[in-house]
C-alpha cells in the first residue's frame, strides 16, 4: 500500500510542455472578448441595485431611451414577459429570476439592461434611468434571518429558511450518552470568492426565424444548467446553442455563475433584435457574480478520554444569499458522504438549514463546501486536544480511517476509494521535519514571540455524483422525481484521412492544461508524441458530445475526463488494430503502434503507416471486412459507484477521495498582529499523478486562494446590507509578495474506480489550508476562538494592552475627541448620517454625481438632494482608494 506507483513508460506521469502555453504566452489566446462578435453586435451595460432590500416602483427609462445610440432597455417587466424563472434544486415557493422583478434583494442585483452601440453610451444611459426604490429592512446575518420577526426576502416562502433537513446515521444519541465527554465548536465561515482574472463574458444572438438562441459565453458548466437556461428562455433544448471560447481566464467554480447573465443577455438580444455582447467589469464581478456561501456551524463530538471520537453532531446553517440559485444548496451537500473527514467515525447526526439573506446569491467556488466543513471539523479536532490535554496530531492519528480499510464506506454513505492516511502523515512528519518546527516554536516562545503550529487532515472529494444534491429532498420526494446519480464524462477521439488524431473533450478548460493531458493520454495509446495530437477544448452544445455532468468542476478532469479520453482512445486503438491485423496478416493482439505506424510485434518491418490505414477506412470502407470501421469513437463514461442516495439518505457524494495532510508554523507580530507563515508543509495523495507540473500548479494555486481566505479576503457587508468589498482595494487578494512557497509532498495510491487511477487535486488546499492556519493562530495565541480572515486588528485585540483614556479626560470626552466606536468592541464598520451644508469644492463636485456615487461605491447608500446646497448622505465607511470621501462625509 505504501508503494508509489511505478511510472509506466510513456508520456503520462511526466511534466510535458503544455500545448496551451505558446498561444497564451504570446498573446494569441482566444478568450471570449477576443472573439469577433457577429456584425452589428451591440453592447450591454447593467443597472444594479444600490439597495440591499427595496421595493422597486417606477423605472423611468424615457430619458435613457432617447440617448442617441441606445437600442433597447430591458427591465424586470420585460424579463417576466419573455421568460420563466430559473429552476431551483429544491421544492419551495421561490422564484429566481436573472433580474430584480418588483423587488431588489441585494446590492448589485440587476434592475435594468441597456443595449447601445457601445459600452460608453450604454453606461451613459444607465445614469439617465431613474428608479424609485422603497427601502425595506435588510437582513445579512443568517441567524438573524431565521428569527420569526426577521424581514422576509420571499413572501411566498413565509420564512427565510428554504430547507431544513435532519439526518441520522448509526446511533449517535447512544454514543453521546456513553462517551466520556462532549466537546463542541461553534464557528462561522466567511464569504469569499476565488476572483478569476477574466470576468464573465456573453455574446448572445436570437434568430426569430428559428426561435433559437446562439450564445457564446465563458461558462464552465456544469451543463446540467443548459436545460435550466433553455427552460428559462422558453425554448426547446435544441434551440439553445451554447458555445464556449477556446480559452478562459480562470474560473475556480465562479464561471458557473454566468447562468442568470446568459439568460439576461439572450433576452436583451431578443428584445434588441441584434446580437448583444456583455463583458462584466470588476465592480460588477465583486458585487454580483457569485460568492461562496458563508456558514454558521455548531459541531459536537462524543469523545473518549484518549481523544477517540465516537460520534459527530453537525448543525450547519448555510447562507445562500438572496436567491436559491441552482445548483445550490449543493455546497451544503457536496461533502455529505465525507462529513467524517479522514476519520473512522460510525455515528453521525446532521441538521442542515438553508437560509436566505440580503447578499449576493452563492454558487460554485473552489473547494465548494469543503472549506466550511473542514473549518469546523479540524477546529474541533484541535479543540479536543486542547480540552483533553493531548497533542493535536495524536488526536488526528487516533481517529484516522485505518490503513488497509479501503475502499471504506463512511457512516453517511461515502465510499473512500483508496488511501493510506496514517502512512501519508508519517511521511509528511518525517519529510517536512515537524520535529524541527516544534523546536522552532519552543525557541520562539522562549523569546516571548507568538508562535503556533497548526495541523489539518482532509479528505478531498472529486468527481461529483450528479445525484448528491437530491439528498436535500426527502426519500419520497426523490422517488417522485426519479433517481439521479452518476457523472457522465465524454470524450471523442478520431483519425482523419491522413492518419492524424484529434480529440474533443467537454470539460470546458479554464486554463488548467486539459488539452495537454488529453494529448498525453492519447499519445501513449497510439505511440505518438503529445504534440502530434490535436485536442479541442471549446464546447459547442449543437455539435459536440456532452451530457449534464460536462464541464469543469469538482476536480473531475483527471479522474473522469482523462479517463474517458483513455477509454475512447483504447476503443479506437482496438479498431485500428483489427484493421491493421488484416493488412499485416497477424492477429490483432500482435499489432503494436510506434512512430505513427501499426506494426507486427515480432517483425517491425511488417508495418503500415497510420495514414494508409486511415485512408483505407475513409476511402474504401467497402473493401474492408464487415463491421464498423469508422475511426471515430465517442465514450460516455460513468462509474457505477456513484449510486443515487439511499432511502436512508446515505450518499456517495463523490467518486474519488484524495488525502491531504498539512501542517504549518506561523508567527503573529506582537505589535501589528500580522500573521507570517514561517513554514507550510502540504502532503497530497491524489492517486496516480498524470502531470506532476500541473499537480504542483493546482496545489500552488489552491494554496494561494486558501491563504487569501485565511488572511485577507472577505465579502463584507454592513448591517444594512451595504456591500463593503466592492473593489480590489477593499477585497484583498494576496499577491506574490504575500504568498509563501509551501513544501509539497506526494504519495500515490491509485483510485480503483477511475480508468487511469487518478483523482482530483484542484481544490484540496482550499479545504485544508484555511483551518490549518487558523489552528496555528489559535495555538500561537492560546485561545479557543479564531475567526477568518485572520485580520491583524482582530488578532491584536487578544494581546494589545487595554487602552486607557488620556489623562485629564473622561471616557466620554476621550471618545468624543478620539473616535466614535464602542470601546473594546471590534466594530469594524462605522456608519452614520449627516447633513452637509458646505463641503470643499472637490468633494462637492463628486457629490453632484451623487447617483453614480451611490450606485457604484459600495457603502454609499441613499444620497438625497434636499436643496441646491443641501444633501443628505448616508455613507458606510470602507471605499478603498477613494475612502477619503467616506471620511469627509461620515460623522
Amino acid at each position, binding site marked *: 500500500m505504501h508503494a508509489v506507483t511505478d511510472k509506466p513508460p510513456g508520456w503520462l506521469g511526466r511534466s510535458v510542455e503544455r500545448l496551451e502555453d505558446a498561444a497564451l504566452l504570446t498573446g494569441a489566446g482566444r478568450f471570449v472578448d477576443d472573439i469577433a462578435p457577429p456584425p452589428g453586435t451591440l453592447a450591454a451595460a447593467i443597472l444594479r441595485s444600490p439597495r440591499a432590500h427595496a421595493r422597486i416602483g417606477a423605472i423611468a427609462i424615457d430619458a435613457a431611451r432617447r440617448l442617441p445610440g441606445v437600442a433597447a432597455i430591458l427591465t424586470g417587466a420585460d424579463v417576466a414577459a419573455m421568460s420563466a424563472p430559473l429552476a431551483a434544486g429544491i421544492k419551495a415557493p421561490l422564484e429566481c429570476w436573472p433580474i430584480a422583478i418588483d423587488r431588489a434583494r441585494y446590492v448589485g442585483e440587476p434592475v435594468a439592461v441597456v443595449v447601445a452601440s457601445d459600452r460608453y453610451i450604454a453606461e451613459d444611459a444607465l445614469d439617465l434611468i431613474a428608479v424609485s426604490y422603497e427601502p425595506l429592512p435588510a437582513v445579512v446575518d443568517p441567524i438573524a434571518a431565521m428569527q420569526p420577526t426577521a424581514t422576509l426576502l420571499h413572501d411566498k416562502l413565509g420564512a427565510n429558511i428554504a430547507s431544513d433537513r435532519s439526518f441520522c446515521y448509526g446511533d449517535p444519541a447512544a454514543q453521546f450518552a456513553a462517551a466520556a465527554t462532549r466537546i463542541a465548536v461553534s464557528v462561522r465561515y466567511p464569504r469569499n470568492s476565488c476572483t478569476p482574472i477574466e470576468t464573465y463574458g456573453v455574446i448572445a444572438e436570437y434568430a426569430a426565424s428559428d426561435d433559437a438562441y446562439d450564445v457564446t459565453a465563458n461558462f464552465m458548466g456544469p451543463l446540467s444548467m443548459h436545460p435550466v437556461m433553455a427552460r428559462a428562455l422558453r425554448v426547446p433544448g435544441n434551440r439553445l446553442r451554447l458555445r464556449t471560447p477556446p480559452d478562459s481566464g480562470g474560473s475556480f467554480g465562479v464561471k458557473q455563475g454566468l447562468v442568470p447573465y446568459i439568460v439576461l443577455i439572450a433576452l436583451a438580444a431578443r428584445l434588441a433584435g441584434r446580437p448583444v455582447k456583455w463583458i462584466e467589469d470588476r465592480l460588477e464581478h465583486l458585487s454580483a457574480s457569485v460568492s461562496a456561501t458563508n456558514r454558521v456551524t455548531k459541531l459536537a463530538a462524543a469523545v473518549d478520554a484518549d481523544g477517540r471520537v465516537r460520534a459527530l453532531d453537525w448543525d450547519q446553517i448555510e447562507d445562500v444569499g438572496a436567491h436559491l440559485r441552482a445548483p445550490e444548496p449543493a455546497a451544503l451537500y457536496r461533502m455529505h458522504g465525507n462529513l467524517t473527514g479522514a476519520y473512522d467515525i460510525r455515528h453521525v447526526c446532521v441538521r442542515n438549514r438553508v437560509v436566505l439573506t440580503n447578499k449576493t446569491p452563492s454558487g460554485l467556488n473552489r473547494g465548494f463546501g469543503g472549506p466550511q466543513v473542514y473549518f469546523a471539523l479540524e477546529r474541533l479536532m484541535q479543540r479536543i486536544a486542547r480540552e483533553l490535554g493531548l497533542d493535536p496530531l495524536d488526536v488526528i492519528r487516533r481517529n484516522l480511517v485505518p490503513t488497509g480499510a479501503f475502499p471504506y464506506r463512511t457512516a453517511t454513505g461515502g465510499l473512500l476509494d483508496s488511501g493510506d492516511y496514517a502512512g501519508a502523515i508519517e511521511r509528511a512528519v518525517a519529510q517536512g521535519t515537524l520535529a524541527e518546527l516544534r523546536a522552532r516554536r519552543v525557541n520562539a516562545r522562549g523569546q516571548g514571540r507568538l508562535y503556533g503550529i497548526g495541523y489539518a487532515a482532509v479528505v478531498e472529494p472529486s468527481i461529483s455524483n450528479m445525484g448528491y444534491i437530491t439528498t436535500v429532498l426527502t426519500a419520497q420526494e426523490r422517488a417522485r422525481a426519479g433517481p439521479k446519480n452518476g457523472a457522465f464524462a465524454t470524450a471523442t477521439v478520431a483519425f482523419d484521412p491522413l492518419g492524424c488524431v484529434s480529440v474533443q473533450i467537454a470539460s470546458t478548460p479554464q486554463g488548467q492544461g486539459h488539452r495537454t493531458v488529453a494529448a498525453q493520454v492519447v499519445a501513449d495509446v497510439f505511440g505518438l508524441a503529445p504534440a502530434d495530437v490535436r485536442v479541442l477544448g471549446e464546447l459547442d452544445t449543437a455539435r459536440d458530445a456532452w451530457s449534464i455532468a460536462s464541464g469543469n468542476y469538482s476536480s473531475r478532469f483527471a479522474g473522469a475526463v482523462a479517463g474517458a479520453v483513455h477509454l475512447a482512445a483504447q476503443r479506437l486503438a482496438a479498431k485500428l488494430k483489427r484493421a491493421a491485423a488484416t493488412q499485416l496478416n497477424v492477429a490483432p493482439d500482435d499489432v503494436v503502434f510506434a512512430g505513427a505506424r501499426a506494426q507486427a510485434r515480432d517483425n517491425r518491418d511488417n508495418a503500415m503507416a497510420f495514414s494508409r490505414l486511415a485512408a483505407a477506412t475513409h476511402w474504401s470502407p467497402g473493401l474492408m471486412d464487415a463491421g464498423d470501421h469508422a475511426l471515430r469513437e465517442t465514450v460516455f463514461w460513468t462509474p457505477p459507484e456513484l449510486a443515487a442516495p439511499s432511502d436512508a439518505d446515505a450518499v456517495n457524494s463523490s467518486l474519488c477521495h484524495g488525502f491531504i495532510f498539512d501542517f504549518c508554523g506561523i508567527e503573529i507580530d506582537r505589535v501589528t498582529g500580522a500573521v507570517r507563515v514561517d513554514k507550510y508543509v502540504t502532503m497530497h495523495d491524489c492517486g496516480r499523478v498524470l502531470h506532476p507540473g500541473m499537480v504542483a500548479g493546482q496545489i500552488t494555486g489552491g494554496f494561494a486562494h486558501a491563504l487569501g481566505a485565511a488572511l485577507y479576503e472577505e465579502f463584507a457587508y454592513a448591517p444594512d446590507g451595504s456591500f463593503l468589498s466592492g473593489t480590489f482595494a477593499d477585497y*484583498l487578494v494576496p499577491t506574490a*509578495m504575500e504568498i509563501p512557497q509551501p513544501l509539497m509532498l506526494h504519495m500515490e495510491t491509485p483510485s480503483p474506480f477511475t480508468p487511469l487511477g487518478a483523482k482530483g487535486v484542484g481544490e484540496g488546499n482550499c479545504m485544508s489550508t484555511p483551518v490549518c492556519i487558523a489552528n496555528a493562530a489559535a495555538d500561537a495565541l492560546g485561545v479557543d476562538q479564531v475567526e477568518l480572515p485572520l485580520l491583524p486588528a482582530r488578532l491584536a485585540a487578544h494581546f494589545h*494592552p487595554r487602552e486607557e483614556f488620556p489623562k485629564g479626560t473622561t471616557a466620554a470626552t476621550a471618545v468624543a475627541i478620539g473616535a466614535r466606536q464602542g470601546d473594546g468592541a471590534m466594530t469594524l464598520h462605522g456608519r452614520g448620517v449627516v447633513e452637509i451644508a458646505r463641503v470643499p469644492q472637490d468633494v462637492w463636485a463628486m457629490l453632484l454625481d451623487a447617483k453614480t*456615487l451611490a450606485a*457604484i461605491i459600495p457603502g454609499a447608500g441613499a444620497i438625497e438632494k434636499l436643496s441646491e446646497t443641501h444633501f443628505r448622505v448616508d455613507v458606510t465607511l470602507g471605499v478603498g482608494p477613494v475612502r*477619503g470621501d467616506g471620511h469627509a462625509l461620515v460623522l
Partner: protein
Amino acid sequence: MKPARFDYIRAETLAEAHAALAAHGGEARVLAGGQTLLPMLSMRLARPGVLVDIMRLHEIARYGIERDVIRVGAGVRQAQLQKMFELDKVQPLLAKALPWVGHAQTRARGTVCGSIAHADPSAELPLVLVALGGEVELSSARHRRKVAGEEFFTGPLSTARADDELVEAVTFPSRRPGYGYAFREFARRHGDFAIVACAAVARTDGARLAIGGVGDRPVAREFAQADRTSLTEALDAFSWELDARDDAHASAAYRRALVRQIGHAVIMEAEQCRV
C-alpha cells in the same frame, strides 16, 4: 467601468496648461501619471469636463537639488525620484518611503506631485512632505505661490489648491547634519494604502513625528527631547488627537495602538540614525 464623456487638452506649454485651468476651473482635472485619476474616471467617481494633460511639459519634468531642497517638478514620476543618485544620502526619508508607494508598476507611471495633489490621507508622499516640512509650489495664470505642506492638506482629497492652480513642483528639504530619519508603515498587503504610516525626523533637541492613514490628512507633532515615560504619554495623547476611525480593515483602537507602538519605534530608530 467606462468614463463619462470628457474633453482632453494636451498642453504644449506651461502657459497653455495655466490657460486651460483658468478657462475651465473646477471642471478641469490635471492628468499626470493617471494612476488614481483614471480609475476614478472609469468608476465615474470623478467626471471632469476637461482633462489637462501636462506630461509633455519639459519645463516641469525635472527634478534635482536646489540649494537645501530637492525640487521635484510636476512631470516627475515616482520611479524617477526613487532612482535619483544617492537619494538615500540626499534625503533618507524619501528613499525609505518611496518603496512603500504603491507598486513598482504604479510608481513607473504615477507622479510625485500627483500624489501630493491627490491628498489621500493614507498616502506616503504627503506624509513625507509634512514630516520634512516641505513646500508645494502652485502656479496659475494669475500668480505663483508657495504653501507649506502642513497647510496644503486641508482634508481627505482636499487641498489649498485653487481651481486654476497647478501643483508645479514640490520641495523636500535635504538631509540636515545631525538629523536622523526613519519610516515605517503597516498595511495588510505590501503596496496597499497604509493603515498606519509613521515618518520621524530626529534632531538633537527632539523629534518630529508625522502620522498617515489615521487622521483625515497627514499630521505632524513635535516631541521634545524627553524621557521614555513622557514620550509614551505624549504619543498616547497624539494617538487620541488623530481622530482615528473604524473601517473594514482595522478599528480605531487598533490604529491608536499602532500609532503609540510604531510611532515610538520609529522615533527611536530615527534617533539612532542621526549623523
